[in-house]
């Protein structure tokens, strides 16, 4: 397995990206209506100042530690390891965070920034509901008005999260336009922002959107990789051979990968949602099957038809169901730093079940895709291999859709 993934030997300093135009190579940028441009320039400026501020850092650390529950453990999954030819696999357990996923790392960061900028109203988009839930949670904490846009289709399949967001005081706006999923929720959130620029901050949930969002979300999520690096050096006294994470927009993956990008010897794999198979029209594998284009403010790989109309993505996991991907991933693919693969709905579901039984961890369907890819390639590992997988979310939210899928009535 590890041999199958070629090493990276180009000289690139990954800390220097994005450039001042928000570009990762040719990807990224800032493709938005003029109304938003001045605001994006302001967010970028304020973020740069905040990043250097000791006060901001102190606040962020405080909430990470006392509210989110960081650092999350790096756990040696011994029984899954046995299934991988005794390669050593560690789970970075961001599923233990408050609200059940990595999403809250970014929400704390962006909402602290919004507060610094004096914004009173927060809008967010959500697919699986994890980002919406995290945003609603942090808004409750800081007493900010919270509007969450969610596709009508997703509202149906993520009922528990919708209920939780309402309990937290958020207003859920059902999006019926387009295909009524995550991409349409993002369109609607952008339209809201354009209409309410003066008092509103848009908290984007993934490493996509116009500059500076891909950079900002990556920075806030990179706490995952920073911790993982310290933890693996402590327990194994060496760097891992392989990092692996699932990819929808790509924020949990980049959070783990980013602090390791400059360590050339660490191989990295991102797993997209293969849905019913990437040779059908029901998947969410933008990098494998998409083409570069422009959506939601950035240049990146997109699922689209020959006329440039954006196509529907499909995945059993609502969190991966997005026809685009963060621009930094598009770049990492093109220069060959990260290998992007995919796992199908069925493979993810099998990995999900196995993880419950072998580790006593009910994973979300999203990281089940990463685990599925490892299990699928189990024979190619050997016992010297050291792997970190981002267990980015827990499966509570998926119980209803999985029971439905398995034909069990709850």
């Amino acid at each position, binding site marked *: 397995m590890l041999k199958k993934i070629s090493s990276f030997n180009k000289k690139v300093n990954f800390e220097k990206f994005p450039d001042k135009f928000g570009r990762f190579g040719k990807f990224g940028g800032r493709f938005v209506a003029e109304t938003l*441009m001045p605001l994006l320039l302001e967010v970028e400026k304020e973020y740069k100042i905040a990043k250097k501020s000791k006060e901001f850092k102190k606040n962020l650390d405080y909430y990470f530690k006392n509210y989110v529950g960081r650092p999350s453990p790096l756990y040696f999954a011994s029984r899954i390891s046995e299934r991988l030819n005794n390669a050593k696999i560690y789970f970075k357990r961001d599923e233990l965070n408050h609200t059940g996923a990595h999403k809250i790392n970014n929400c704390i960061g962006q909402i602290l920034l919004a507060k610094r900028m004096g914004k009173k109203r927060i809008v967010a988009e959500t697919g699986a509901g994890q980002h919406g839930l995290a945003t609603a949670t942090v808004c409750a904490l800081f007493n900010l008005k919270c509007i969450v846009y969610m596709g009508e289709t997703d509202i149906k399949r993520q009922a528990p999260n919708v209920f939780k967001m309402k309990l937290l005081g958020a207003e859920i706006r059902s999006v019926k336009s387009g295909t009524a999923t995550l991409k*349409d929720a993002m*369109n609607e959130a952008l*339209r809201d922002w354009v*209409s309410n620029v003066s008092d509103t901050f848009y908290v984007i949930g993934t490493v996509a959107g116009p500059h500076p969002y891909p950079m900002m979300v990556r920075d806030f999520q990179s706490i995952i990789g920073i911790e993982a690096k310290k933890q693996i050096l402590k327990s194994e006294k060496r760097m891992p051979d392989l990092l692996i994470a699932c990819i929808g927009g790509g924020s949990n993956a980049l959070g783990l990968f980013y602090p390791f990008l400059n360590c050339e010897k660490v191989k990295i794999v991102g797993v997209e949602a293969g849905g019913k198979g990437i040779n059908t029209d029901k998947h969410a594998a933008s990098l494998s099957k998409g083409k570069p284009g422009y959506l939601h403010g950035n240049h990146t790989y997109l699922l689209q038809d*020959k*006329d*440039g109309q954006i196509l529907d993505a499909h995945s059993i996991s609502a969190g991966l169901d997005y026809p685009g991907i963060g621009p930094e991933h598009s770049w990492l693919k093109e220069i060959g730093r990260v290998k992007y693969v995919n796992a199908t709905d069925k493979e993810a579901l099998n990995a999900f079940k196995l993880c419950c039984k072998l580790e006593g961890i009910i994973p979300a369907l999203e990281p089940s895709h990463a685990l599925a890819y490892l299990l699928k390639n189990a024979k190619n590992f050997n016992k010297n291999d050291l792997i970190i997988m981002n267990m980015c979310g827990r499966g509570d939210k998926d119980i209803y859709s999985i029971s439905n899928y398995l034909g069990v009535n709850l």
Partner: protein
Amino acid sequence: MQNRIEKKFFDLETKKEKALICFVTSGDPDLKTSQKIINALPKSGADIIEIGMPFSDPMADGPTIQRSSLRAIQSGINLKKTFNIVKEFRKKDTSTPIILMGYFNPIFQFGLTKFFSEGSKNGVDGLIIVDLPPEEDKLINNYTKKFNIHNIRLLTPTTNKKRIGTISKSSKGFLYYVSIMGITGTKRPSINSVKMSVGKIKKITNLPVIVGFGINNPRQVAQMNSFSDGCVVGSAIVKIIEENLDTKNKATKITKKINDFLKKLKKKC
């Protein structure tokens, strides 16, 4: 060769008239009806025609234009067919400027060289790409120059003085002032704040300044025209199309209703 847009503004100034710019979505509700609607616009009073190129994810558009884009996409519209509409229109009208308006992805997928050469060949005079702000439009600057298609820039209530300066310096044809903070066809613009902004812009540039977004009646047109060089009407026209989809002889009925509506607006120009 002079661009039709400059010639039109020159003629309007001579006649002491203001410009009425009319927006419809290409291929809405279907190719044939759309062609008839567009062909009839100049006679009804449209000085400039703005044709929307439908995109699945129109970020800056309100529900009315979202629905019209969807109808057009479902009827099978694409850029090739849009250029064909322009070509057919030009067989009968060689003077009314045509501006294509849309989002960057469909244009990029069509191919920039092909897009601009087809545009120039078929008689397109201007282009509005909503999600291509000045910071990113170097991607098309060589093409707009080479093919004499003006890149019409948008100014909004959030654009500060410095940006107005930079944007107007590199613009041609006219400047499009977005009268509200929001999406098309939703909020009602406040006349006083638009007047102040347009005044500010006119101090910085000599280009004509056109006001759009949320304009749908003769009174508003008259008010806006008292300080601007013209208005864009979009969602209000698209609404007429939407309200008459099921009628018999829809093309005739829609063009007649649009004609009645535009005549009233043009009186105020």
